[in-house]
């Protein structure tokens, strides 16, 4: 085997003509277990290091080990890399590497490709057993008809020149190939490989380096489509991770002592991400027997002074509903992270939906005001947990952080946060409690009160979910229940006072305002930008506080001819049989804003379980504004 340094061809000498492009969307798809994701994550990391904007998102099959070469089995990754910041997974792929042709069908159903998309397909199936050959040929035909540009690549064959077991190394060979096609720095690629395999022995590392170079070389020699994506290198430190990893770091950086959870997709990986480290960061993970217990345990811990976090998804929220009511009623500070997935019921467990907003707002019986915030970027997933703990304690309230499967699995680089001591929960207050002060000493203007913590002399009280007075004594006088409810509601109004009206992206007035929340910000703003370039009078607004709502919305809405939310959840499509404006089921934010502002807010939403792409939004805008916006 040749030694690395020699085999790196200096890019200058490369024969291929390199086309400068603003961005590229690349997919690597395969059966699960073929390392496509590792390949894509590496490509993303390399590009980020080269100063490109990057967004990668994994393509996950529904089963642990789906049948090989099956439509449902598509496992892989999409990497979107560009000259500028990338905020979403984009539209159709420009180039796809497929380790078998069958897995492509799933992606085609999901409209991931367009005519002109380049497919690089492993060609070993052309010489495989009869049935497979037949399938392969037929597929290649169909793909051609669909207008894809197909290249059949001898991946296995080439890998076997370098290693004995191709299945194990093909992904790094593909990485090499992509490095050639997109002009990725091989030094950086090599160090990335060394990092990935840091725990493996030198031989394995060397094998993978050889595969990298073999793939690179092969592409240099045999392919004639070479691009380059200029990147602006910055000397700022960056980190690259997905939203669940960001949440897990946020939990530790908030100094949260207890993470009480029960496994559920797509939330669990947030716990996995911190499991090894949290104990040295002063916290512990409690895997409870179920979500009800996870919530009760967190509430108990918070009651005892250690504000806890619980992380779950829709079905878990449903089970926590009763405890949510208690946390509101007894004013227990607590952070609840809801990584939303497709519903109702078990629904689409691995797919994205923004379907829990109303459930979190109104799930519990009676009036149960609580704080709800929604990060819209990976970076915010980190900072909002720190914010959530502070809000929970200042407002003596449960705080919901709504993310979703799109943020949970989307990977994006962002400036490395400098961890600040003031982010961490301080030691719990154990100084004696002021005798005259009551456990619910509601402030007349803000409804706020200070809570006694077990261990505080003289602060003894019995927390209860029953209607209670300032002393936490069971209320017999009917006036108390009304008064207490007013105080709990007032806390939200008081928080609302401290918020600024949100800033409109684009002009402050126009034909159409798109309103979004959570993971859709990148796609919405990209679509708006592209539409505005083509002269559309469209702007967008993205909400981060959902309860209380950010102030001044009605004023903002009134400046636009039309207001429409863009959400990933269900709404009746106008024109569907029997649907009228009066009986229409609106998307969740739209519905909430209509009630609060009385503005006739329309919505664009669906439950395909996919992130909404800028392209879909542009399509909608074309109809809405009748303009041609997509090329």
């Amino acid at each position: 085997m040749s030694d690395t340094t020699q085999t790196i061809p200096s890019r200058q000498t490369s024969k291929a003509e390199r086309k400068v492009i603003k961005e590229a969307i690349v997919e690597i798809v395969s059966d699960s277990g073929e390392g496509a994701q590792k390949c894509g994550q590496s490509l993303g990391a390399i590009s980020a290091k080269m100063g490109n904007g990057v967004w990668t998102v994994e393509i996950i099959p529904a089963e642990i080990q789906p049948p090989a070469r099956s439509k449902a089995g598509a496992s892989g990754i999409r990497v979107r890399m560009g000259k500028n910041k990338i905020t979403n997974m984009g539209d159709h792929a420009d180039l796809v590497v497929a380790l078998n042709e069958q897995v492509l069908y799933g992606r085609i159903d999901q409209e991931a490709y367009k005519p002109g998309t380049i497919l690089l397909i492993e060609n070993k199936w052309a010489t495989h057993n009869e049935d497979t050959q037949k399938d392969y040929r037929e597929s290649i035909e169909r793909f051609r008809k669909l207008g894809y540009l197909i290249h059949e690549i001898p991946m296995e064959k080439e890998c076997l020149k370098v290693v004995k077991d191709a299945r194990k190394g093909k992904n790094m060979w593909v990485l090499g190939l992509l490095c050639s096609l997109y002009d990725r720095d091989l030094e950086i690629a090599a160090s990335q490989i060394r990092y990935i395999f840091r725990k493996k022995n030198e031989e394995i590392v060397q094998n993978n380096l050889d595969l990298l170079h073999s793939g690179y070389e092969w592409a240099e020699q045999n392919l004639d489509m070479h691009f380059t994506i200029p990147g602006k290198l910055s000397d700022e430190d960056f980190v690259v991770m997905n939203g669940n990893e960001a949440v897990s770091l946020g939990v530790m950086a908030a100094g949260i002592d207890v993470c009480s959870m029960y496994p559920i997709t797509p939330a669990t990986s947030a716990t996995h991400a911190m499991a090894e480290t949290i104990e040295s960061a002063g916290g512990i993970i409690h895997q409870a027997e179920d979500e009800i217990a996870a919530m009760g345990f967190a509430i108990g811990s918070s009651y005892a002074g250690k504000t806890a976090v619980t992380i779950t998804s829709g079905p878990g929220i449903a089970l926590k509903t009763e405890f949510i009511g208690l946390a509101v009623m007894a004013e227990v500070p607590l952070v609840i992270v809801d990584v939303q997935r497709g519903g109702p019921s078990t629904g689409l467990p691995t797919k994205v939906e923004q379907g829990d907003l109303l459930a979190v707002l109104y799930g519990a019986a009676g009036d149960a005001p609580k704080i709800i915030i929604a990060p819209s970027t990976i970076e915010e997933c980190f900072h909002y947990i720190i914010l959530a703990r502070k809000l929970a304690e200042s407002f003596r309230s449960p705080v919901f952080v709504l993310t979703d499967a799109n943020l949970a699995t989307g990977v994006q680089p962002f400036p490395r946060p400098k961890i600040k001591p003031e982010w961490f929960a301080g030691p719990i207050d154990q100084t004696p409690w002021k005798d005259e002060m009551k456990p619910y000493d509601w402030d007349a203007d803000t409804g706020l009160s200070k809570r006694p913590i077990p261990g505080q002399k003289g602060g003894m009280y019995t927390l209860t979910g029953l209607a209670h007075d300032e002393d936490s004594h069971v209320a017999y006088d009917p006036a108390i229940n009304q008064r207490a409810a007013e105080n709990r509601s007032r806390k939200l109004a008081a928080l609302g006072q401290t918020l600024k009206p949100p800033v409109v992206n684009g002009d402050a007035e126009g034909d159409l305002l798109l309103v979004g929340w959570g993971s859709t910000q990148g796609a919405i703003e990209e679509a708006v930008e592209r539409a505005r370039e083509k002269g559309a009078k469209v702007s967008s607004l993205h909400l981060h506080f959902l309860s209380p709502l950010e102030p001044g919305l009605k004023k903002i809405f009134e400046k636009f001819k039309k207001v429409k939310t863009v959400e990933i959840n269900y709404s009746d499509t106008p024109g569907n049989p029997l649907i009228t404006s009066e009986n229409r089921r609106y998307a969740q934010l739209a519905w909430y804003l209509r009630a609060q502002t009385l503005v006739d807010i329309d919505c664009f939403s669906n439950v395909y379980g996919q992130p909404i792409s800028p392209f879909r939004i542009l399509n909608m805008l074309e109809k809405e504004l009748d303009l041609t916006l997509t090329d």
Partner: protein
Amino acid sequence: MIALKPDFCDVSLPDANYSMEDYSSSKARWCSGCGAHTILHSVQKLCQEEQLPPEKTVFVSGIGCSSRFPHYMKTYGFHGLHGRAFPVASGVKFRRPDLHVFVVTGDGDCCSIGAGHWVHAIRYNMNMVVMLFDNSIYGLTKKQTSPTSPMGTVSNTHPAGSILPPINPIQATLGLPNVSFVAQTADWKPAHLHATLKKAYEHPGLSFVRIVQRCPIWMKDSYEPTVKDPDAITVLDHENGIHLEDKDLKKFRHVTNHDPSDILKAREMAEVVKETTPIGLFYQNKEASRYDEYGAHNLGISTEDRIAAVNSLMDRYAI
């Protein structure tokens, strides 16, 4: 209880000499003759004897007549949700080794809606005293069948009599992993009740005490015979068991020797012992692993160290 090193500076000693008054708040609103009154008194006495600082003591309950208990103590209390006392109490204790935690639960609260948490609380074996107020009926909601109602119990949901054999909370608990302390007593045997609670309090781990409790309002007929009949009860006696003064022990007609280290024998004893209800310590194991010790193992880490840890994980994502 073994109080591990607390994770904050306040290490002042509890004020000496707490009196009974220091543990009793408003007048208990249970029916007159309700067994809960005697248990409340015994618990307050225990707190006083052990001089538990009220601010370091937490009573956690669910919902039910029995679960009103915390309101009548002048300590910290958590009157939570029906069936959910265990997870809340576990959360309270997890990172607060300095707190003395007591759980008050009813037969519906623990054995019906709370059964799943009961199973797991026993397994966690966190250092706390669990008192199951077992009146074999749903008291607060006015006489519905409970899982411990004797077969044939006439209730508002089973006017023709309940159709299933009752759960034996002792036997069920003895079948669970990591079980470390299982005892049974009766509210109308104050000496035995108190000795049992004391032993439970001293046990390092979760002590599960089923207290057979009188509900004169709904279950007069079912408990009165037992209370009156001197043959209705058998005391399990052993040097490692519940300690009764001789004069108190003499009051019982039936006394059997039972070694609480023998779990197989304990399971045998858990069934009705020749027509009588056994009271005493069925099983104790001080060596069972304790989840609260795990919960306290990394307390008091400095902010500097926390920051270092976060950064070490952050490094993995660095590019």
